[in-house]
C-alpha cells in the first residue's frame, strides 16, 4: 500500500503511549509534523475566501517538492506518496474538495487537524456521521446531497434510538461553533467535510479505506510459524510424490505423447488386472490416495471382506454415487441405500453411532444430494483410522504389491515419416471408457441379482432374513443383525440359525431354481441345485455358485448353498463360531474369501453345525 520510501525513512520512532497507530502511520504523522517546521517545512500561503483570508494553505507543487527533497526519492514515487496523503485525509484540497488527488499546479491544500487523522483504533462512527449530517442540515437548511440524504435516512432507521441525542448534539455543536471566529468556523467546516469525504465516500469516488485501516489483524504480526509449517508440508508432499510424477520422474514404459506408444494408458487403466508398482505404492501414502484409485478401492474391498466390513466401503461408494450421480434419481437411490445399509435389520447394516444415525434418518425424509454426508464421513473416518492401517500390513496389499508390474522403459521409435506429419494416437476417450464401465457394471448386476430376487420370492410367510440373500449375493458379508447369528459365505454348506419356529432354517425351499445347470435334487427337500454363476476367479466380490455337490449328504433342514466339495476332499473342519453382530472390522485374522479351489478353512463366523 505505501511505497517503500516510507519504510526506509529512517525516522526516529515517535513515542506513542498506545498502539493505535501501526508503524507506517506513525511515520506519516512524523512527516506531517516535519512539514510544519517554519525553517525546513513547506511554505504556506493564505487562501482568499470572499472577503477574508484564511492562512496555512499550501500549494500542491510545494508539497511535491518538499517530499522530493526530504525523502530523496523519484518524482513518480513522491507524487504517489503525496497523492496517498491526500487520499487518506492528512491533507485536503481547498478548491476541489471532492477531488482527492495531489495536483502539482497551483491548487491549494491544507493540513487536516490531528483529530481527523485516519487511525485504526478510531474508526469513523455512525453516530458522529449522523451528527455531522444533522449539522449540515441545519446549516444548509435541508440541502444535502443525494447520497447524504440516503445515508441520513438509513442512519435514522439504523440508530433510531439514538436519534434524539443526535439532534440535540448537532444543535449544540452548531451553537458552540458560533462562539468561534468566522474564519475558524469556515476552516472547521472544511476540515469536517474533508474528513467525511474520506470516511464516507460519495458514490463514484474511490474509497481508500476499504481494505486499508479496517483490518482486524496486525500487519506486523509475526507469521513465520504458519509459513514454516506450510513450507514443511509442501516439501514433504513433493518428496513423497516425486516418484509418481510423470513429468519429473518420467513415466514407464514411455510417455505416450512423445513416443506414440499407448502402453502407458493401457497399463494404468482404471480397473486393470495388474496395476503398476508405482500406483500400488501410492496407495500407501495416505488414505485418500487409496480411495481415489478405483483399483485401490477394489483391492481394499477385498481386504475388507476378509474383515467382514465390506459394507463400509460399499456404503461409501453408494454415497458417492448419490452425490455425483443422476440427481433425478436421488429419492430412489436414497431409499435404496437406506433399505440396504441403514434400516434396522438391513442386509448390510453399517455401524454408525446413534446421533449420526438420527440425523441421517431425519434428513432422509427430504432426501437430497448431501443427505448422507454425515454418515459417509463417519464411515470414511472409521475406515481410515481402523481398517486402513491393517490393510497396509495385510497379505492382500502385499500380494498386490508383489504382483504389480514394473513396465520396461521403451525407447522412442524412430520416425518413419521424416517429411510427413505423424498422426498421433489419442488417449482413450472418456466416453468409451465410461460405456465400458457401465457394461461391466450391468453385467455384474445381472449376475448377482438373480440370487437375491430368487431369494425374495421364497416362502412368503416367513420373512426372508436379509442375511441369507446377502450371503448369496454378496460374498464376504456376514449378516450383522443383532438377532441373527452369522450366516454363511458362499462356499460352504452351512446352516443358518434364525429365530423362528424351529431353530433351523426356515428357508428350506431355497429357491435355487434359476438356471440350474445340473438339476440334481438334494435330500431333505432341498430344491434343485443352485444356479451356476460363472466363476469369476480373481474378481473379488463375486460369488461363484457352482452347482450343488452330488450326493452332498445334507441333512434335513440344512441350507445347501453352493460350492460342491470335490469328491474326496476333506470336509472343512466344522468349527462353530459365533460372530457378534458388530464384529466387522475387528479382531480375528482375515481369511481369504471365496476360494474357487475349495479351501478347507471355513470363513470365520460361519456356523457349521453338525447335525
Amino acid at each position, binding site marked *: 500500500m505505501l511505497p517503500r520510501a516510507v519504510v526506509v525513512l529512517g525516522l526516529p520512532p515517535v*513515542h*506513542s*503511549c*498506545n498502539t493505535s497507530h501501526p508503524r507506517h502511520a506513525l511515520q506519516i*504523522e512524523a512527516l*506531517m*509534523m*516535519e512539514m*510544519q*517546521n517554519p525553517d525546513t517545512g513547506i511554505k*504556506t500561503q493564505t*487562501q482568499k*475566501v*470572499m472577503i*477574508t483570508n484564511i*492562512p*496555512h494553505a499550501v500549494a500542491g507543487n510545494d508539497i511535491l517538492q518538499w517530499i522530493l527533497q526530504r525523502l530523496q526519492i523519484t518524482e513518480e514515487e513522491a507524487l504517489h506518496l503525496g497523492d496517498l496523503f491526500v487520499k487518506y485525509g492528512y491533507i485536503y484540497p481547498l478548491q476541489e474538495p471532492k477531488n482527492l488527488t495531489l495536483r502539482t499546479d497551483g491548487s491549494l491544500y*491544507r*493540513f*487536516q*487537524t*490531528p*483529530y*481527523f487523522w485516519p487511525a485504526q483504533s*478510531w474508526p469513523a*462512527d455512525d*453516530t458522529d456521521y449522523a451528527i455531522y449530517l*444533522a449539522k449540515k442540515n*441545519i*446549516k444548509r*437548511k*435541508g440541502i444535502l446531497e443525494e447520497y447524504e440524504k440516503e445515508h441520513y435516512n438509513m442512519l*435514522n432507521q439504523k440508530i*433510531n*434510538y*439514538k*436519534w*434524539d*441525542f443526535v*439532534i*440535540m*448534539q*448537532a*444543535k*449544540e*455543536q452548531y*451553537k*458552540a*461553533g*458560533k*462562539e*468561534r*471566529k468566522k*474564519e*475558524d468556523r*469556515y*476552516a*472547521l467546516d*472544511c*476540515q469536517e467535510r474533508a474528513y467525511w469525504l474520506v470516511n464516507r465516500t460519495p458514490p463514484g469516488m474511490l474509497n481508500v479505506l476499504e481494505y486499508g485501516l479496517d483490518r482486524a489483524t496486525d500487519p506486523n504480526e509475526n507469521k513465520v510459524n504458519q509459513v514454516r509449517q506450510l513450507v514443511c508440508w509442501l516439501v514433504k508432499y513433493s518428496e513423497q510424490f516425486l516418484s509418481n510424477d510423470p513429468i519429473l520422474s518420467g513415466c514407464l514404459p514411455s510417455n505416450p505423447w512423445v513416443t506414440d506408444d499407448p502402453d502407458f494408458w493401457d497399463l494404468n487403466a482404471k480397473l486393470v488386472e495388474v496395476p503398476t508398482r508405482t500406483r500400488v505404492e501410492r496407495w500407501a501414502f495416505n488414505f485418500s490416495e487409496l480411495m481415489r484409485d478405483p483399483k485401490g478401492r477394489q483391492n481394499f474391498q477385498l481386504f475388507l471382506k476378509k474383515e467382514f466390513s465390506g459394507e463400509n466401503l460399499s456404503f461409501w461408494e453408494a454415497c458417492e454415487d448419490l452425490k455425483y450421480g443422476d440427481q433425478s434419481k436421488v429419492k430412489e437411490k436414497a431409499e435404496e441405500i437406506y433399505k440396504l445399509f441403514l434400516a434396522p435389520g438391513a442386509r448390510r447394516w453399517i455401524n454408525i453411532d446413534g446421533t449420526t444415525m438420527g440425523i441421517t434418518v431425519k434428513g432422509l425424509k427430504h432426501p437430497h444430494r448431501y443427505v448422507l454426508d454425515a454418515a459417509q464421513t463417519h464411515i470414511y473416518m472409521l475406515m481410515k483410522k481402523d481398517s486402513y492401517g491393517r490393510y497396509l500390513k495385510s497379505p492382500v496389499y502385499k500380494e498386490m504389491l508383489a504382483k504389480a508390474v514394473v513396465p520396461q522403459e521403451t525407447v522412442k521409435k524412430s520416425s518413419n515419416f521424416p517429411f510427413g506429419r505423424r498422426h498421433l494416437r489419442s488417449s482413450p476417450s472418456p466416453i468409451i471408457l465410461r460405456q465400458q464401465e457401465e457394461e461391466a457394471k450391468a453385467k455384474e448386476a445381472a449376475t448377482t441379482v438373480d440370487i437375491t430376487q430368487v431369494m425374495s420370492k421364497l416362502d412368503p410367510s416367513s420373512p426372508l432374513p436379509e442375511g441369507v440373500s446377502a450371503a448369496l449375493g454378496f460374498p464376504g458379508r456376514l449378516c450383522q443383525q443383532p438377532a441373527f447369528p452369522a450366516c454363511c459365505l458362499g462356499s460352504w454348506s452351512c446352516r443358518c440359525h434364525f429365530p423362528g419356529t424351529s431353530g433351523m432354517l426356515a428357508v428350506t425351499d431355497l429357491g435355487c431354481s434359476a438356471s440350474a445347470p445340473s438339476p440334481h435334487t438334494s435330500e431333505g427337500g432341498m430344491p434343485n441345485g443352485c444356479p451356476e454363476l460363472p466363476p469369476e476367479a480373481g474378481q473379488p466380490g463375486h460369488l461363484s455358485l457352482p452347482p450343488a455337490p452330488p450326493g452332498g449328504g445334507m441333512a434335513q433342514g440344512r441350507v445347501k448353498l453352493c460350492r460342491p466339495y470335490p469328491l474326496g476332499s476333506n470336509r472343512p473342519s466344522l468349527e462353530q463360531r459365533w460372530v457378534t453382530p458388530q464384529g466387522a472390522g475387528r479382531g480375528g485374522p482375515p481369511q481369504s474369501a471365496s476360494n474357487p479351489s475349495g479351501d478347507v478353512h471355513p470363513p470365520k463366523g460361519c456356523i457349521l453345525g453338525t447335525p
Partner: protein
Amino acid sequence: MVKEECKALLDALNKVTACYRHMVLTIGGTSDSQNLREELKKTRQKAQELAVANRNKLTTVLKDKTVSKEDKAEFERLWVIFSTCLEILEIDMRRALELGHEFPLNVPKKHLIQTGMSGGTSGVAARAMSVQNMKYEAEHNIDVVDLKDLENEINQVGEMMYEMEMKVSVPQWTVEAKQDPGAELKSTISVGASSIGMISVEENKSFCDISKVLAGIIFSAVLIIAIVLAVCVVKLS
C-alpha cells in the same frame, strides 16, 4: 417536576459534551495552546460532575416502581440519551489523551499542525462553563501534567459506564426517538447570515455573482438617471 430536572441536567451535559468535542478538535492545530489544555481540563471536570448528577437522578427515577408507564418510557428515553452522551464523552477524552501525548506544547521540535485556525476557543469554553469569561490560572506545563489526571478520569468514566450498564437494564433498541428525521430544521435557531453566506457562497458563487452584478447595474443605472435629471433640472431652471 422530576422530568424537567432530568431534562435540564441532560441538556447541560449535552452542551458541555459538544463544547468539549470542539475543543478536542483543536488539539494539535495552530489554535492549540496552554489555555486550550486548561479549558479542556475544566470542561471535562464539569462534564464529569454533570454526568454523575445525571446518573444519580436517573437511576433513582428508574428504580422507582411507582412511576407510571409513560413516564417510565420517557425516563428510559432520557437514559438512552444520557448513556450515548457519556459514550461520546469518553471517546473524546481518550482521543484527547492520545493527542495530548502526541502534541506536547513546550517541545521545540514538535510543531503544531497548521490547520488554518487562528482564533482561540475561549468562547466555547465560556459557553461550556456557563461563565462570561474564562480565567486561566494553570501552570505553564499543564499539557503534560494534566495527562495523568486525564487517564484517571477516563478510568473513572469507564467504571461509571460499566456500573450503569450493570445496575440499570434499559434495552436501548426499545426506545423510539421522539424527533422525526429533519426535526433539526424546524428548530428556532437564528442562523447567522454571514456564516451561511460565506459557506454557501462558495458553492453558489456564480449565482451570487450574477445577481450581485445585476443589482449593481440596476442601481448604478438608476443613480445615473437621477443625476442626469438633477443636472437637467439645475440647468433648465
